[in-house]
């Protein structure tokens, strides 16, 4: 695909959880809980509030088409702020410090005062109906000649458990939001920029790690298309595919638009009650519906069922809109007969509605109120097909296709957070912020300074265990040994089903130091760590699993083994070293360094040969 020719423009919004001890606007810990541990539950309705300018946000309006009662799980680690029962605490200074550090790494300009806003979110994911957010810095640069437009600090939303049930443990964890300009021109470039930003964030050592702690929103448009915001891409590896599929969708929608115009297609918006047509139906969905409504899309035949993304059709787009009214979906004649609807029924349906061969018919089945609402939404979306690509917020589906979520929100969703005082950022403070070394730079330094090979250096620099490595090296452990122990041995442990989380950094460093001092062999590291992970102290583990073997003891052992095989050794000469070494190691493995064994054996053999 020639992306330059179609005018692809993409921008990123990256949300990364910060690894602070407390939440952004309260003192609860930033721990995510198992929802089964919840010890309380409250339920709330949300309503639309107007902005201070007197406007209502269109996205919010659509989210609340159905008044829903949301349920929230609470925990012994959450408090009144999370359930919107208490005013927020002042903005967490640690979180602001991390955000300013990152802003400085992108060479941005901080705002002299941070003003917290409320961004209205009424899908239930915030108990208050808004997310607190504040712009912190503007206009910076990143590699790949891209620009960071803004950096904001904001609070994380609730986790959805199912449908209208949410968990408040995650609500309020500080997030940084990094918004780039629409500077990316190919899907791969989007991947690379996201990767670079992710690396920069991790370089601070102050962001959370693991699944769900970073999310990318991608803004995509092509020439003649429209800006579409795709929310919540969690896997970096999928990001380029998401962009590719969105391009495909926009191109397909533009082609459908041209075809509709060529066919003189019409959406007249008339809705008919067709319940009677299906009075004898065998379709399970239609059978249990109180009302079935239908509409004719003149000139749409074959286009509603046209695939515009893998497993997605224009019909799926209409269905997404209809679902806002609480219906399960829709049927269209491009896919019928199917789902228990017979050819005869389709025939009667088309005839009843006067649909010609070029026309498509859409039906929905539910209560009258839901059907009327759904039909309005379907007709609205069908009319949009004449414009090509609607501006939308979309959510990612498995594999990288997307579904409609809501219209793009506007400025009316923002309202000042009146409960929080502005926070000044002084020149002195900004200048005092130290910038951490980038992980990519660190990896290069590990090669040149510590002699790690490039692969290991990179793996170590990007590992969550980097602080442990740096501490071990600072305390005198040889870097290569430290890196090997941390990367290989800890992985081995987890492969063996032993959680390395039970091992403290102190214990791991103590084990490494024991080996470095010659009090245990390198070969025993895994066994010692295993014993420690099971609760043994480092000294007990060393003496039980790998009691040290002294050089004198080794000399005696080697002497005995060699004495028993004098003839063999004399016959084989130097070639006897290997087999005899094997016999010795069998006795001492893990208790003394192999290098020492080799030295002692060499000496002993020298006396015989």
């Amino acid at each position, binding site marked *: 695909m020639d992306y330059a020719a179609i005018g692809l423009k993409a921008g990123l919004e990256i949300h990364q959880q910060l690894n602070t001890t407390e939440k952004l606007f309260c003192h609860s810990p930033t721990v995510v809980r198992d929802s089964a541990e919840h010890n309380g539950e*409250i*339920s*709330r*309705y*949300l*309503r*639309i*509030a*107007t*902005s*201070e*300018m*007197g406007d209502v946000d269109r996205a*919010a309006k659509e989210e609340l088409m159905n008044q829903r*009662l949301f349920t929230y799980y609470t925990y012994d680690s959450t408090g*009144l702020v999370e*359930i*919107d*029962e*208490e*005013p927020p605490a002042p903005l967490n200074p640690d979180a602001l410090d991390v955000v300013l550090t990152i802003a400085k790494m992108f060479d*941005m*300009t901080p*705002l*002299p*005062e*941070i*003003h917290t*806003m*409320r*961004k*209205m979110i*009424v899908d239930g994911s915030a*108990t*208050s*109906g*808004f997310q607190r*957010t*504040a*712009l912190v*810095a*503007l*206009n910076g640069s990143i590699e790949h000649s891209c620009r960071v437009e803004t950096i*904001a600090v904001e609070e994380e939303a609730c986790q959805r458990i199912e449908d209208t049930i949410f968990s408040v443990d995650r609500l309020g964890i500080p997030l940084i939001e990094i918004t780039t300009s629409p500077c990316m021109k190919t899907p791969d470039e989007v991947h690379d920029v996201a990767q670079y930003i992710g690396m920069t964030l991790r370089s601070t050592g102050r962001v959370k790690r693991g699944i769900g702690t970073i999310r990318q929103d991608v803004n995509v448009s092509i020439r003649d298309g429209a800006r579409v915001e795709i929310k919540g891409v969690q896997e970096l590896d999928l990001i380029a595919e998401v962009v590719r599929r969105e391009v495909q969708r926009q191109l397909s929608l533009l082609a459908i638009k041209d075809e509709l115009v060529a066919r003189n297609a019409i959406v007249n918006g008339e809705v008919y009650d067709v319940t009677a047509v299906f009075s004898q139906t065998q379709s399970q969905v239609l059978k249990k519906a109180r009302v079935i409504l239908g509409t004719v899309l003149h000139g749409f035949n074959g286009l509603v069922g046209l695939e515009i993304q893998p497993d997605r059709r224009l019909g799926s787009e209409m269905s997404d809109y209809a679902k806002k009214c609480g219906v399960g979906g829709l049927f269209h004649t491009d896919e019928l007969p199917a789902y228990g609807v017979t050819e005869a029924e389709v025939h009667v349906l088309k005839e009843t509605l006067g649909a010609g061969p070029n026309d498509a018919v859409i039906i929905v089945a539910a209560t009258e109120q839901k059907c009327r609402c759904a039909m309005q939404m379907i007709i609205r979306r069908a009319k949009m097909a004449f414009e090509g690509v609607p501006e939308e917020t979309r959510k990612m589906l498995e594999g990288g296709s997307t579904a409609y979520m809501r219209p793009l929100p*506007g*400025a*009316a*969703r*923002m*309202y*000042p957070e*009146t409960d929080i*005082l*502005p926070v000044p950022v002084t020149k002195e403070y900004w200048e005092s912020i130290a910038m951490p070394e980038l992980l990519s730079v660190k990896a290069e330094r590990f090669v040149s300074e510590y002699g790690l090979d490039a692969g290991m250096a990179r793996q170590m620099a990007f590992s969550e265990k980097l602080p442990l490595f740096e501490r071990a090296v600072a305390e005198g452990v040889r870097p290569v040994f430290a890196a090997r122990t941390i990367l290989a041995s800890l992985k081995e442990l987890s492969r063996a089903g032993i959680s390395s989380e039970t091992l403290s950094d102190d214990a791991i460093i103590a084990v490494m130091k024991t080996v470095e001092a010659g009090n245990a062999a390198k070969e025993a590291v895994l066994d010692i760590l295993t014993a420690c992970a099971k609760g043994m102290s480092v000294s007990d583990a060393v003496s039980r699993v790998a009691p040290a073997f002294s050089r004198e003891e080794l000399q005696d052992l080697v002497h005995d083994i060699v004495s028993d095989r004098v003839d063999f050794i004399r016959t084989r000469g130097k070639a006897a070293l290997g087999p005899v070494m094997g016999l010795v190691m069998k006795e001492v493995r893990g208790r003394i360094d192999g290098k020492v064994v080799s030295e002692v054996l060499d000496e002993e053999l020298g006396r015989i040969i």
Partner: protein
Amino acid sequence: MNLNNSDPVTVEFAGIEMDGIFINRSGEHAIVKLSSGYNICVPESLCSPKEKTASAEKPAVIPLNQDASLPLLSIISTGGTIASTVDYRTGAVSSKFTAEDILRSIPELAGIARYHTLQPFQVLSENMNPAMWQELTRNIHDEILKGAQGIIVTHGTDTMLYSAAAVSFMLSTPVPIIFVGAQRSADRPSSDNAMNAICSAKAAVSDLGEVVICMHANESDTKCALHRATRVRKNHTSRRDAFQSIGREPVGSIEYPEGTVVLAKDAVLRGTKELRLSDNLVSNCGLLQYYPGMNPAVIDAFKGYKGLVIAGTGLGHVGTDCIESITRLTASGTTVIMTSQCQAGSVCDRVYETGRDLLDAGVIEGGSMLPEVALVKLMWVLGNATRKEDIRRLMQTNLKGELEYDLWRCA
């Protein structure tokens, strides 16, 4: 620069140009609302005015549809969180919403009743005072005379119980008078204002016939409680269910969103009392919380007051060294009522020696009255009686449910 609120501006900051709207100043800084909706704060010198474009048409004010077949209620708005929006003078919230704004923002109200709205004042509740209680009570009286079948008073929650108690004492009412507020401001999607207001309207058309406070019964949006105005306290600074009945169960509840009203057996019912206004109040009364080690001069400072309510310890005591000051105060004509700091129970000054000394000093036992309610009642009693024995009798008579433990009264 002569920038005014809502003026379009261009901001040049960090090497970029941004469009926005000037909001207000914070020292040398300008607060500007960017087109993204974010407010930013930048040196005012970086803002330049832009030519005003024809302003976008504001949505037309929706006319209030009133269903003539529904009962008539009056909404009297006094201010408070239920009616608050952002105030760019301080950046905090203040009370600006009118009763009509409330009706527009909560369309469900239109299905319950038709409304007459009035707004005698717009204040945060800490700014309420006895003169306002009187004006409010007169307004309610007039509305009932004009045919209101129920009254809803929107009020800040902090002093709502004082106002509600004052209306209770000043007005005999045949219809429900429902005080309602919000703990979370009306500008947020999660505000409790809508649910409380809808429940209050349901209560106002119900069979109730007394003054109550209607607020969330718990932290969920499932039920409101109706608390008798003379037996309620705000027990939490911010939770939705801050209001709780003290020493008794609520006089009613409303299921939400169904709107089913359930009244307690002893709730005063609609139409059982005649409409009567008795709005005299003597406002120079005080309320004093005794604390260990209190300097008796604090009590002397109330010299010249018509009345003083003391929230004493336990069964109703103060330190012995305060008794002389109290004796002087009563001798100079101040009525002194003893109540308790305890959450529940009744004062009894005959058990301990200090109590007997207090009675000798001329203190009147306030029974189970909440100190705040005793203060309001004392203002009303002093406004309606002058003879000492009448004052004592009235203070110790249960007038509006304020003396919950009559049966165990020790007097």
